[in-house]
């Protein structure tokens, strides 16, 4: 069987050559072509599993003098043109935009982790920053992840796809006793396994996962969500996950190991989390005392427990990621742009909303915000009065 092809289109092909050995050396086994736009042929488009297009294509003189309808302004435009040419292919390749200036694509969106919204806006599977210093996964590994997902999806697609084999074969769901609940959770997120997938030969499933599942708390949850449910700090949890403890092994049992499992940090199956909580507490998952004792006895290091009683995850305004564990009465619900209705509610700290006009616009219920603000004002007044006395 031939190895999958990654086609990289760059107006300065030499600049991308560094990635060739990184891709070639990966155990996945891929072929790489790095070409100037003028050198791309039909055979490349007909065989590539992933097409990577550079955002800025400045050095392309053949475009000069073209009539407007033939002028390809940049990589976004080229990606759209290429998409139209591969749309009848079966399977379709994934198309990725590669950029060193993400801020030029993001518009008013926050810089970090907005790739999925930008990708969605520009009708591509992913946006890959060229200098991804903030991430601990290299550019090459991300491309490999995408190739692997495309190849696996192609196999699945050719055998006939449905929610059950999507969950077992592509998402890596095993035979755990919580499988039925996990599949139910997957169904609720409307995976496009029917007509839409048929029309796009499966690539819609890539987008569903990268744009609608991975960035949000749905049937998969991240370490922040796990920490909130367990009542521990995220920092302690991350540290504990690097240790060899009974607690860590229990969490490993429901860690997500399907497609893109390292693409954007670790994830765990929500259904597995429920099962874990029930087992840890003998069927009383909300009994914090039993839960704490259970964590304490199975962890490597002394747990750092939260003092919150009804913890929710609040959005960090800088990243627009849910990375603050706060008490529910310090926060209100918001609807960030593009937030799926099937994902857990998004929350923002009242304090952040007061300081950030963008966040304030996202509040679901203004009266809820007013009520909470009044409660806070009263609390602050009481505190002030106590100090005065």
């Amino acid at each position: 069987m031939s190895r999958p092809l990654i086609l990289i289109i760059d107006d300065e092909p030499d600049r991308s050559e560094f990635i060739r050995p990184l891709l070639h050396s990966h155990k996945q086994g891929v072929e790489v072509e790095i070409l100037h736009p003028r050198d791309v042929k039909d055979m490349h488009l007909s065989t590539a599993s992933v097409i990577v297009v550079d955002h800025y294509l400045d050095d392309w003189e053949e475009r000069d003098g073209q009539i407007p309808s033939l002028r390809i302004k940049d990589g976004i435009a080229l990606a759209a043109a290429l998409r139209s040419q591969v749309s009848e292919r079966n399977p379709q390749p994934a198309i990725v935009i590669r950029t060193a200036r993400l801020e030029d694509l993001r518009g008013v969106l926050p810089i970090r982790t907005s790739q999925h919204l930008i990708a969605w806006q520009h009708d591509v599977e992913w946006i890959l920053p060229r200098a991804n210093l903030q991430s601990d996964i290299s550019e090459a590994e991300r491309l490999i992840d995408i190739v692997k997902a495309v190849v696996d999806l192609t196999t699945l697609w050719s055998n006939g796809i449905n929610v059950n084999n999507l969950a077992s074969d592509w998402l890596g769901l095993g035979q755990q006793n919580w499988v039925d609940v996990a599949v139910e959770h997957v169904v609720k997120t409307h995976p496009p396994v029917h007509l839409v997938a048929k029309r796009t030969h499966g690539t819609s499933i890539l987008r569903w996962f990268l744009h609608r599942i991975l960035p949000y708390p749905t049937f998969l949850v991240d370490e922040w969500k796990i920490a909130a449910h367990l009542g521990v700090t995220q920092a302690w949890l991350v540290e504990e996950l690097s240790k060899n403890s009974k607690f860590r092994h229990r969490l490993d049992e429901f860690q997500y190991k399907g497609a893109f499992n390292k693409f954007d940090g670790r994830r765990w199956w929500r259904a597995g989390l429920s099962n874990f909580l029930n087992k840890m507490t003998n069927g009383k998952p909300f009994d914090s005392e039993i839960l704490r004792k259970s964590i304490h006895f199975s962890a490597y290091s002394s747990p750092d427990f939260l003092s919150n009683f009804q913890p929710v995850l609040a959005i960090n305004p800088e990243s627009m990621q849910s990375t603050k564990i706060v008490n529910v009465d310090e926060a209100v619900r918001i609807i960030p742009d593009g937030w799926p209705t099937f994902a857990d509610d998004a929350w923002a700290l009242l304090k952040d909303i007061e300081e950030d006009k963008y966040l304030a616009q996202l509040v679901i219920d203004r009266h809820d915000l007013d009520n909470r603000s009044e409660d806070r004002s009263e609390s602050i007044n009481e505190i002030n009065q106590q100090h005065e006395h």
Partner: protein
Amino acid sequence: MDEVRIMKELAAPFLQEGSLDILDNLYAQLETLSGPLKWQVDPNRPIITRDCGGGYERGKKGGQKVHAELCLIWELRPVGRRRGRTLQVEVGGKASTVTWLYLTGSRSSKIAHWRMELGDSQSPGSYFHVQIPETLDNSHSDTTISRSGIMWPRWLPVPRIPVLPFTPMLSLEYVLAEIFQDEWPEYINKRSSDPSVGQWRNIQMNRLKRYFEWQKELVDSGSVSPLITLKQAKPEPGLFLN
């Protein structure tokens, strides 16, 4: 409203298809409430569970196929103005949720029913109570009762058996827990980290805590008969409000 929305999501696998539309309709009635409302499910089109497959006994050892049907009428009226999604309401008349149990396959084979209600201001109590409405019973061996043929006759309003503060949705959860003795708790436990389960738990926990605190205050009140005190007590308006 949150109760209806959450229960629709949680109870979906246990209900017949058409019942989800009924829950949608209940939600919509509250959403648009602006004056007195008969918030109701028509007895001719009740919420219907699926057959419990003998699940009314542990281990699904019940030998019969049974399902439940539920209807309700709660006469509500708004208190004050709607503020965003929040509107306070009070019960201004009837508040009754009726549950029937049937042998599945025959709608005429009604085998049990009960009514969960709130008492009115004139009621001798208990305020939150269940009544077993009039039935025909030929099975009792006592000759006096079998001669009359009627158990729980309409003219006899007692007993009003005290119960927890059952909203219609909690009544639905109750009947699911009764006829799906194993399946319902197992189903809920498997979804403990689902937001809807957490929300449902919070709503019920807050309400029940307030109820039990009120009950404890009554018992501690120093009356001669705590039972009579409990039986006759009526909650202050706003007991369950934030």
